[in-house]
C-alpha cells in the first residue's frame, strides 16, 4: 500500500460544520521529503484539511495516516506533525529559547540535549543569539522563524504550514519563500503548505493541490497544473486564462475537432475525456500573439478581432480583444521594439496561437 511510504496520507476525508461542508471526500498523499502546496481561495477548506491532519479537527468521515500509521483517533499532542500557524502564535510569556524548547520539554530530555537541539534549530533559521529575546520584541519575519524553529526542533514526520507568509509584507515574503525552500531542502522532511497565493505555490512546490469548495480540483507539478488545468476553476485561479465555449464536432484517437469562434480547430485532448456537444477550452493570455495582419502559417489558429482596451502594466501590455461573442485577454511582455506597442483601441487585429496551447477542460 502506498500509505506506508508517504509522510501524510488522507483518505476520503469529509468534514461538516452543521449544514456547511468544509471538506468533501478529499484524498491526498504527501511523499517523504516532498513540498506540497494546498492552493485555494479563502473558505475553500484548505486550512480545515491542515487542522484535520494536525488533529485539531476530527473528520466526520475518512482516515488520516502519518508515515503509514492510522492516526485518525490519535490526539494532536501524540501526532508526529507540527504546525506553523498563520499568526505564528508564539507563547507571549516565554522567551525565544523557551518557545523553541517548549515541545522538547514535554519529552523528558536532558537539559543539555534540549540546549543542544534548541541551539541547532535556532541556527537553522538563522536566529542564533536571539535566545533571551521576547516574542513581542521580534519583527514579523523573526517571529516566523521562531515558529519554524519551534516546530522543526521536534523533527516531525511532516511540517504543516498554514499561510505562514500571509502576514508579511511583499519584500519579506519573497525572502521567506527562499528561506522556506532552503529549510525544506536542508532538513529533508515533507512540507505541506497552505496558501491562496498562486505565485508562492508555483515558486515553492514540488506539487500543487488545488482545492475549492471543499473538493480537490487537481493535483500535479506546478507545470502540469499551469499548462494543463483540468477545470475552468483551476485555469483561472492559477494564473489568468481565457475560458472559451467550443462546439464538439468530432473526437477520436485523442484528438478533437472543435468549432471555436467560427473556426474549425483540431486540438489534442491529452487524455481528457469529453462528451456531449459542447466543451470549454482554456488559453493562457501570454500564449496568444497579436498581429496587424494574418500570418501565412497553417499550423496556427488565427482569429480576427477588435481591440477594446489597452492596458500598460509596466512589465507587460494587456489587451482585451473582442472576437465575436467572446472577449479575449492577451498579454505580451514589454520588450523593446515590440510591434504590439503600436496597437490602439478600436483597431482590427489578428490573434494567433498554436493548437497545443488550447487546453480542453473537463467539466
Amino acid at each position: 500500500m502506498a500509505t506506508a511510504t508517504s509522510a501524510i496520507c488522507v483518505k476520503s476525508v469529509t468534514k461538516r460544520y452543521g449544514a456547511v461542508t468544509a471538506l468533501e471526500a478529499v484524498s491526498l498523499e504527501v511523499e517523504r521529503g516532498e513540498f506540497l502546496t494546498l492552493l485555494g481561495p479563502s473558505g475553500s477548506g484548505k486550512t480545515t484539511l491542515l487542522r484535520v491532519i494536525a488533529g485539531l479537527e476530527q473528520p466526520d468521515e475518512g482516515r488520516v495516516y502519518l508515515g503509514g500509521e492510522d492516526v485518525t483517533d490519535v490526539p494532536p499532542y501524540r501526532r508526529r506533525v507540527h504546525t506553523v500557524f498563520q499568526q505564528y502564535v508564539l507563547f507571549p510569556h516565554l522567551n525565544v529559547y523557551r518557545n523553541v524548547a517548549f515541545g522538547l520539554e514535554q519529552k523528558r530530555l536532558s537539559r543539555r540535549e534540549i540546549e543542544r537541539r534548541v541551539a541547532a534549530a535556532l541556527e537553522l533559521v538563522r536566529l542564533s543569539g536571539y535566545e533571551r529575546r521576547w516574542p513581542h520584541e521580534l519583527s514579523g519575519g523573526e517571529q516566523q522563524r521562531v515558529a519554524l524553529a519551534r516546530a522543526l526542533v521536534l523533527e516531525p514526520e511532516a511540517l504543516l504550514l498554514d499561510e505562514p507568509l500571509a502576514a508579511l509584507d511583499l519584500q519579506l515574503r519573497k525572502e521567506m519563500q527562499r528561506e522556506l525552500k532552503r529549510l525544506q531542502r536542508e532538513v529533508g522532511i515533507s512540507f505541506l503548505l497552505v496558501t491562496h497565493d498562486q505565485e508562492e505555490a508555483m515558486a515553492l512546490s514540488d506539487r500543487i493541490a488545488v482545492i475549492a469548495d471543499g473538493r480537490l480540483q487537481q493535483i500535479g507539478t506546478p507545470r502540469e497544473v499551469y499548462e494543463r488545468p483540468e477545470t475552468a476553476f483551476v485555469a483561472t485561479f492559477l494564473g489568468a486564462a481565457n475560458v472559451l465555449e467550443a462546439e464538439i464536432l468530432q473526437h477520436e484517437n485523442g484528438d478533437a475537432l472543435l468549432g471555436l469562434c467560427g473556426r474549425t480547430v483540431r486540438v489534442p485532448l491529452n487524455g481528457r475525456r469529453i462528451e456531449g456537444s459542447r466543451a470549454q477550452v482554456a488559453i493562457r493570455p501570454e500564449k496568444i500573439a497579436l498581429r496587424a495582419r494574418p500570418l501565412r502559417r497553417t499550423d496556427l489558429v488565427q482569429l480576427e478581432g477588435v481591440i477594446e482596451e489597452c492596458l500598460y502594466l509596466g512589465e507587460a501590455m494587456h489587451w482585451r480583444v473582442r472576437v465575436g461573442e467572446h472577449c479575449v485577454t492577451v498579454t505580451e511582455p514589454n520588450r523593446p521594439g515590440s510591434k504590439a506597442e503600436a496597437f490602439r483601441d478600436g483597431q482590427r487585429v489578428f490573434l494567433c496561437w498554436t493548437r497545443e496551447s488550447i487546453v480542453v477542460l473537463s467539466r
Partner: protein
Amino acid sequence: MRGTSANRWLLLAPSLLWMLLFFFLPLGLIVVMSFAERGPYGGVRWTFGLWNYRQAMDPLYLWVYGRSFALAAVTTALCLGISYPVAYYIALRADPKWKNLLLVLSILPFWTSFLLRTYAWIFMLRVEGFVNTMLLALGVIERPISWLLYSDFAIVIGQVYGELPFMILPLYVALERVDVRLMEAAMDLGANRRQVFWRIVLPLTRPGIITGIVLVFIPSFGAFITPDLLGGAKSAVIGTVIQNQFVQRNQPMGSALSVLLILVMFALLLIASRVTRQRGRR
C-alpha cells in the same frame, strides 16, 4: 490652553472633593487619633505619643492579627480553588451563547442583601440547622455537629461565600482573554491537556489570579460583620477587635489598630503590584 486646564480641574472637582471629604479626611483623623490618648471616661485626650502602638505590639493583639491573616488566607485559597474551575468552564468550555447567562447566574445570589445571606448561613449551620438535620436524617452522624456555627469554620464558610464573585470575575476576564490558538499551538507541539493548563493557561492568567487574591484577601483580612455574626465568642479577628475598641469608646486604640491593619494591607498591595509588573515587563 489655560481654559482647558481650568476646565480639567472643574471636571475633577466633584470627585476630588468627594475623596477629600470622605476618604482622606477620615483617614487623616484616624491617623492623628491613633497617637492620642483615651480619656478617663471615654473620649479622646489630645496628647500625643506612641503608647497605643506599643500596646498594639502586645502578643494578644499580634495573635489576633495572625489569626485574621490565617483566616483570610484560607478564605482566599478556597475562593481561588472554587472560582478557577468555574471561571475556566464559563470562559473556555461553555457554549458562547450561554456564557453571559452562566456568569450572571454565578453572581446572582449577591444581588440580595449581604446581611440576609449571612443570616441564611446561621439557619443552615446552627445545631438544629439544615446541614445537621440532613446529616442526621441520612445517618451520617449520630449527634448534631456543634462546631458548624459560631466557629472559625463558619467564618471561613461565610467569607468564602461572600467574596466568591470578587474572585470569579477577574479570573473570568483573564481566562476569557487567553488566545485559544495558543492552547492549540501547545497541543500541536506535544502538550496534553494537563500540560497546556500548567504551561500556558495558568501563567497567562496570573494577573487575574493576583487581582482576585487582592480583591478577596484585603476585605477578608479586615472583615468584621461575618466574623461578628458567624464567629464564636473565642474567634476574635482584628475587625471585631477594632470594632470593640470603638464601641468601648477607646477610639485612639481602635485607630492605632486600624492604622496597623492599613499598613499591612498596603504592604501586601505593593508586593502584589510588584509581582504583576515584573511579569508585565517580561
